[in-house]
């Protein structure tokens, strides 16, 4: 009950993913999913958190995405229940959709990205995500991922046995050149988590440069309360 887009930005080489789920705290399962200068991988269906780092370690040691996928499957007796995407440094994309996850589980593979959907409201949800991602080629990766997730929501999102289910948690993660994330935002439990992520992102984004700058130059930094007040005034 999760839909996800994983991508490598062709301009910057950054890696990221955005995911929305009926499960709470889906960000827990994203731990280690993206790594700078390496790749991005995510396992849903039945989440398997250990796969994230395993895939990144395999790619880091030189395996292609395809080889890494082969090892993930060979290493997991439950691979029929997994839905996995892997993207490597070359932008190669590989997807595995296990045979024993729900029949409505589908994926799309595009140029440098993969879309995974489990119990999404049919193919139209992942098509909408892919179309949105393709249409935003000039934007930063985090904007493209967030916008794509919203398109998935608008196309019907998650469907259970009795109709639509809410997205209760989301995560948006981007890694660039450093050994820590460029972007890592989460909503862990909410009745409209994708909407909430947009609210959070909109508030967070203007702070991004400030959070970096105050550390590099603490003598000249203005207090965070003051900065937040300045932002509010600019909005008015």
């Amino acid at each position, binding site marked *: *009950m999760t839909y996800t887009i994983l991508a490598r930005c062709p301009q910057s080489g950054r890696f990221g993913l955005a995911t929305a789920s*009926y*499960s*709470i*705290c889906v*960000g*827990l399962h994203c*731990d*280690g999913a993206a790594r700078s200068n390496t790749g991005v991988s995510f396992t849903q*269906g*039945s*989440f*398997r*958190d*250990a796969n*994230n*780092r395993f895939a990144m370690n395999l790619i880091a040691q030189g395996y292609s995405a395809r080889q890494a996928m082969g090892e993930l499957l060979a290493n997991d007796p*439950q691979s029929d*229940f997994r839905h996995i995407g892997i993207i490597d440094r070359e932008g190669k994309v590989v997807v595995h959709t296990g045979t*024993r996850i729900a029949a409505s589980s589908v994926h799309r593979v595009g140029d440098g990205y993969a879309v995974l959907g489990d119990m999404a409201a049919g193919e139209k949800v992942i098509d909408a995500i892919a179309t949105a991602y393709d249409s935003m080629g000039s934007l930063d990766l985090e904007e493209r991922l967030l916008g794509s997730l919203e398109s998935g929501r608008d196309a019907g999102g998650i469907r*259970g*046995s*009795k109709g639509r*289910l809410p997205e209760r948690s989301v995560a948006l993660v981007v890694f660039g050149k*450093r*050994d*820590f*994330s460029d*972007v*890592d*935002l*989460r*909503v*862990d*439990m909410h009745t409209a988590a994708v909407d909430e992520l947009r*609210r*959070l992102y909109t*508030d*967070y984004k203007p*702070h991004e440069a400030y*959070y*970096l700058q*105050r*550390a*590099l130059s*603490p*003598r000249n*930094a203005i*207090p*965070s*309360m003051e900065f*937040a007040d300045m932002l509010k005034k600019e909005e008015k």
Partner: protein
Amino acid sequence: MTYSIIARCPKTGRFGVGSTTFSIACGRRNESVRPNVGISKSQAFYLRGVDPLVLNLLAQGYKPERIVQILNSDDPDFEYRQFAIIDRESNVIAHTGPKIGQWAGHIVGPYYATYGNGLAGPQTVQGIEAGFMKNPDAPLEYRLLEALEGGHNAGGQATKGRYRPERSAWIRVVDRLEYPEIDIRVDLHDDTIAEIRRVFEEFKRYETYYSNRSNNPADTISEEEFSSRLKSNNR
């Protein structure tokens, strides 16, 4: 303005961090916790590269005391930094630079440190410690949650005598595996401490189910089914 606790559970060796702040999405700093190595959580004008550096040094065999000297030797703004470090042997150290502004400080305990800046006063770090020690037999994540609540109830953050809200919070616990057992976040909220308790308690209801679903998917009911059973049990 931020207050935090880092700890190594004396019974299990699990590492955990609890943190809350006025800034947005404090839980994005997951580079600060490394299983089987330790925790380095910097705050107040923090450089994000510092925590990975500290953990690399810990992994090489350096002790926290020596690491503080190393950090100090390469940082002209060391007086603006606040951090705490704990290693595999429960060696704990904390640093509160004198130029951070009032009130800032820390308490170092036998297997934990509580620390913060932009606080109502020393009562906040004392409140964190009191919350943490309230149920010493509880699993680490419960103690971290009570620690944040203790800091909040003791006055939390304040500048110029005025309470300043917590807008994000984070609890992360790791055991021996590379990925966390607990990683609960509130990234932007008006009532953050109450919200993280709400998410925490709901996560605890799902925790075993989620673990079974990952490890034994063939015998797992759908989450939709599980959720509706939870709801009818709560009635």
